[in-house]
């Protein structure tokens, strides 16, 4: 195991290196073997339980082998809508094992995973880090055959996507699907212009400009960016950090992926501008591991910027501004997008949210004041510095300046990324993307709201429909309960499990939903769903749990009639118990007739 030792020893003896080491070990062995756990623990002076605790938190790390080729098939609703079930079946048949298992010869492992940010080109999967999109059963057949012959997975991608996806450093079949370019994110941008403009001014002026622009965070919460920077700058500290949140885990969103692919320099300049404004010397891009295929590309852009003195010491002749950016990789955990969990993960631990206060601007990365911003926010800030707050405010609405990227997927003719001014109505967007007979629109992902037709007049803006940009469209032929169930499964899987309401409550909610779906619902069950959901919302510790009942609560509100139809309205109590089902197994084992056609005596 000399090799393994090298993998471990080349890392610093610093606990914050834990995830990096685990990733190297995982990549090398396909899992984290027992011996490695012990050596990693010894190297970092941690207990083995601590190492295992970190390994088992992240979806893409494993203590047991995951196969020489590991398939992670996306299980989001958009994937299901585009034929995931048949694709999954093809994988199982061709590989010869079920999902969750590894083939007997250890060649192929099949696993499900939460949304990988390809909702505009589903069904998609990641195989040994390589992204495959628009899968069909036939393509799967060829893929698995090729894997069995020992062909490297990378070589199975034969057609590249558009733009930088074709570049030597990416070589990915992912398409950008940029359908509408706007002036802010996808407008013209000259390399170095934002940084040069910024360092010619005082940091305070930068903050003032961003404040004046009324830029609100694009990651979902909508916090004023200028204010965040100001808080951070005002904290007394020897060091400050800029963190860019590129975890993009909300199902249905993929716009950050496209920015990272096509506009990485704009993003990095935005980080440098933020760094200059708050007085930071270091920036960190926390990249979800689903987007690791972009890493070399991003590193190359950073290298280029260093060459041009846009990063490094004495940037752009500023005299005293030094700033550089490193990339940290996630390992499969939606909750790591929550800013304090992101910090924990970036520091090499289980990605569990922190208790707040203190907020990251006070005590963030490595316990220093830190601004955490979304990819799109930082890009937008760079443009604001370049073109001024007035330019920015000339777009959008009174309280929501500028443009927003929308990630549009589901039942429409033109899924993809749209840069549009704030203030347009849902119906207007539906018309643009070619969704003629939309029945329901999920805004903001599972944690957002599900709108019915009567709400299509509402506007995308922080004063009305606040959103990180995920828009999933469902036609009238879709089963809404299946959609809601899929969303609940997502939260159940992605809960960090720290606090009771989220860890336990979501499973209970889902159970109730299944009861109703099985035709065993009563009026009481609807009341329970609502009451339990509100409790989970109020009692949970972080944003994940606080929004996790939304799929149920918002459909209960906007699609009430579906629930009413699904239940027995004349009964106050219907048990979930079914004698036929409960006695089936024993009847089978003893070769007796199961008890059929039973009716409740209620």
């Amino acid at each position, binding site marked *: 195991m000399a090799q393994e030792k090298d993998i471990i020893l080349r890392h610093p003896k610093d606990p914050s290196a834990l995830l990096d080491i685990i990733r190297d070990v995982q990549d090398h062995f396909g899992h984290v073997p027992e011996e490695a756990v012990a050596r990693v623990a010894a190297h970092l002076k941690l*207990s*083995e339980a601590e190492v295992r605790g970190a390994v088992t938190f992240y979806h893409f790390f494993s203590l047991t082998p995951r196969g020489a080729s590991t398939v992670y098939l996306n299980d989001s609703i958009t994937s299901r809508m585009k034929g995931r079930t048949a694709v999954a079946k093809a994988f199982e048949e061709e590989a010869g094992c079920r999902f969750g298992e590894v083939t007997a010869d250890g060649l192929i492992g099949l696993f499900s995973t939460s949304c990988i940010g390809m909702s505009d080109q589903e069904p998609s999967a990641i195989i040994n880090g390589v992204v495959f999109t628009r899968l069909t059963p036939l393509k799967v057949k060829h893929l698995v055959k090729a894997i069995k012959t020992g062909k490297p997975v990378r070589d199975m991608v034969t057609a590249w996507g558009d733009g930088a996806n074709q570049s030597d450093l990416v070589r990915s079949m992912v398409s950008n699907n940029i359908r509408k370019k706007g002036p802010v994110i996808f407008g013209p941008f000259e390399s170095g212009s934002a940084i040069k403009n910024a360092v010619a001014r005082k940091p305070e002026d930068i903050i003032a400009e961003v404040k004046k622009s009324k830029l609100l965070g694009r990651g979902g919460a909508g916090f004023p960016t200028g204010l965040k920077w100001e808080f951070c700058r005002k904290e007394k500290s020897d060091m400050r950090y800029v963190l860019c949140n590129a975890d993009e885990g909300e199902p249905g969103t993929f716009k950050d992926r496209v920015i990272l692919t096509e506009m990485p320099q704009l993003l990095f300049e935005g980080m440098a501008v933020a760094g200059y404004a708050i007085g930071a010397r270091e920036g960190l891009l926390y990249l979800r591991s689903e987007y690791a295929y972009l890493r070399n590309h991003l590193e190359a852009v950073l290298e280029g910027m260093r060459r041009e003195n846009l990063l490094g010491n004495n940037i752009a002749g500023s005299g005293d501004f030094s700033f550089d950016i490193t990339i940290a990789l996630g390992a499969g*955990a939606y909750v790591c997008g929550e800013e304090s969990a992101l910090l924990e993960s970036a520091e090499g631990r289980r990605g569990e949210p922190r208790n707040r206060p203190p907020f990251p601007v006070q005590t963030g990365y490595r316990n220093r004041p830190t601004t955490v911003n979304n990819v799109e926010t930082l890009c937008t800030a760079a443009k604001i510095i370049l073109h001024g707050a007035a330019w920015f405010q000339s777009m959008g609405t009174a309280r929501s300046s500028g443009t927003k990227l929308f990630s549009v997927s589901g039942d429409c003719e033109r899924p993809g990324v749209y840069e549009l001014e704030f203030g347009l109505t849902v119906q207007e967007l539906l018309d643009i993307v070619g969704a003629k007979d939309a029945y329901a629109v999920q805004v903001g992902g599972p944690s957002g709201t599900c709108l019915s037709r009567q709400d299509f007049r509402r506007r995308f803006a922080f004063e009305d429909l606040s959103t990180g940009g995920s828009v999933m469209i469902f036609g009238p032929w879709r089963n809404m309960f299946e959609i809601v169930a899929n969303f609940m499964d997502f939260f159940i899987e992605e809960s960090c499990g720290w606090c009771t309401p989220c860890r336990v409550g979501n499973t209970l909610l889902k159970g109730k939903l299944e009861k109703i779906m099985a035709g065993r619902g009563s009026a009481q069950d609807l009341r329970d769903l609502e009451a339990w959901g509100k409790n989970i919302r109020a009692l949970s510790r972080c944003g994940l749990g606080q929004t996790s009942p939304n799929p149920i609560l918002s459909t209960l509100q906007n699609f009430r009639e579906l629930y009413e139809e699904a239940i027995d309205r004349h009964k106050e109590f219907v048990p979930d118990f079914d004698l036929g089902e409960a006695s089936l197994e024993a009847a089978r084992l003893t070769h007796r007739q199961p008890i059929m056609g039973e009716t409740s005596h209620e």
Partner: protein
Amino acid sequence: MSEITIDGKVCKARAGLTIAEVAKANGIYIPTLCNYRGLKPVGSCRVCTVRVGGRYMAACTQIAVEGMVVENTAPDLEDMRRSILEMLFVEGNHMCPTCEKSGNCELQALAYRYQIMAPRFPFQFPVRQVDASAPKIVLEHNRCIQCQRCVRSIQTEDGRRIFVPQNRSRRRKIGVDPRLVSELTDEMALKAMDVCPVGSILRKEVGFAVPIGQRKFDKKPIGTEIDEEITR
């Protein structure tokens, strides 16, 4: 010194104290479960949730801020707390009649105080193993409520953790370090058992030591020492 009110009662609050600490100092009981004196609060159980200006927060982690108007015993709030206790009961397998901790268990005691006769939620009956591999302690995962008290209180001298959360979501469980746990001293093993609010960490070869009737919560509800007046 600042002032907050809890259910209308004016409470003096020393700077930096949490709402839970301020309440206690002022003779007001806010139920807690994961909280433990001397350990950094983690806010995992959420039983201490209070309402401040319509917003919900955990009293054990929220610092009291001048002028806060805290609701503690509103009937709907108490019912929310009850629902958390019920979740903890259905999440695991709590067979109190067979449990060494019965009568001394804080989860059970809270259920008594809140008069929980049967949970509103269906029992999950999870499949969990009992881990008796360590020489001095047994881990009864069926009863663990993820309070992290053991995680926080039991460490080696050089700061390595012996009890550490493993997995995530509902699969989350407390894992022990096999080597370090075998080096536990009698003292530490006893401390681990005492710090665990439920019957999840048990010292081997002891148990059922105190006769029924004399156990911690046989006679008086949990929290009695803080608010003498139980009005239920």
